[in-house]
């Protein structure tokens, strides 16, 4: 079936969302070659290919490389977020066994090296629970929550992941016994570039887009996100997606 898709109609009308997306894509494109140079030559120096490197120099080169990669991840995330928020990137929805998917995500996102002395508690429904999701985007949303939870939870703490159906919604909750968030910051958590303080010395700072991406992905699935937190006690983030019957209408994203 060939029809005038919403995207084509909007492009024809010079839609500001399309212009925004193209602008972000253009910036990303222009940044990538210089970033490839910064990171590539830093790697060459680090590897000693240009000459001997002292330990002090190696440490600084490592900082340059890390920061270069941080800009790359920021650019990638900005492109992803803009695509989803403008509705130009549409989820590719596939009927998915959610317990399977969540198991895979937890395994990949919290390897032994990240887990450390934290307890990871996973609570999945016994029977097959399916939902219609974009597996890549859902994985991204959940892994952002897991990465925050481990980053903000000190050694010896606990991160629990629970998947269930509640009120006709597929709910994934990530609860941690971390540092928590004070109330003024809590209301704006899902906005871009809102930072709270991580546990010192661990994991470093995020790029300020993780939760905004999470929300955008949930909303693109016709769902939503929630956050509750008690300063000093921990936080709980949830992703709520419509169960099978309420699948959102979609079009091919090509």
């Amino acid at each position, binding site marked *: 079936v060939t029809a005038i898709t919403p995207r084509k109609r909007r492009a024809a009308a010079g839609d500001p969302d399309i212009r925004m997306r193209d602008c972000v894509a253009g910036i*990303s*494109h222009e940044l990538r*070659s210089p970033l490839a140079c910064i990171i590539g030559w830093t790697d060459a120096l680090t590897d000693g290919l240009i000459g001997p490197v002292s330990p002090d120099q190696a440490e600084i080169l490592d900082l340059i490389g890390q920061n270069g990669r941080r800009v790359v991840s920021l650019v990638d995330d900005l492109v992803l977020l803009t695509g989803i928020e403008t509705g130009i990137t549409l989820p590719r929805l596939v009927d998915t066994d959610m317990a399977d998917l969540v198991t895979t995500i937890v395994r990949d996102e919290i390897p032994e090296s990240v887990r450390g002395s934290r307890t990871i508690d996973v609570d999945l429904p016994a029977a097959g629970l399916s939902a219609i999701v974009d597996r890549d985007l859902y994985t991204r949303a959940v892994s952002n929550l897991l990465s925050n939870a481990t980053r903000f939870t000190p050694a010896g703490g606990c991160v629990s992941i629970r998947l269930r159906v509640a009120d006709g919604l597929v709910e994934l909750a990530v609860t941690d016994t971390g540092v928590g968030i004070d109330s003024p910051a809590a209301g704006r958590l899902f906005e871009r570039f809102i930072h709270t303080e991580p546990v010192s010395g661990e994991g470093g700072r995020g790029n300020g887009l993780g939760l905004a991406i999470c929300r955008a992905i949930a909303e693109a699935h016709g769902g939503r996100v929630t956050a509750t937190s008690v300063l000093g006690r921990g936080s709980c983030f949830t992703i709520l997606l419509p169960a099978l019957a309420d699948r959102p209408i979609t079009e091919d994203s090509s």
Partner: protein
Amino acid sequence: MTATPRTILVADDEPHLLRLVKFRLERDGHTVVVASDGEAALDRIRETRPDLCVLDVMMPRKTGLDVLREMRADESLRHIRVIMLTARAQDSDVETGFGLGADDYITKPFSPQELRVRVTTQLDQRG
């Protein structure tokens, strides 16, 4: 893993990046021919008959995709393996490139290992 030394053409309009790719490939023992736009790339390809081309997509005069299209339409250049160098990952350039007969692509920024593996794979397949 390193391939038998071969001649590789690298085309990119960003001189610093061109130098980086050349540096890495030369370290692996390859002979590297460079070009800073698509037209120059085609001239050098016809002159030197490289074993492999690494073509940036966005170049002045002729884009990397234009160069690829002309190579695939030319009986004497059709067999040369081509890796596209692209600034965007989730992007129609990649699909267009494969549609025109590109053999692989590398997204900027790339690790030295990725460059080596992709180049070696293409050179090995060429035999």
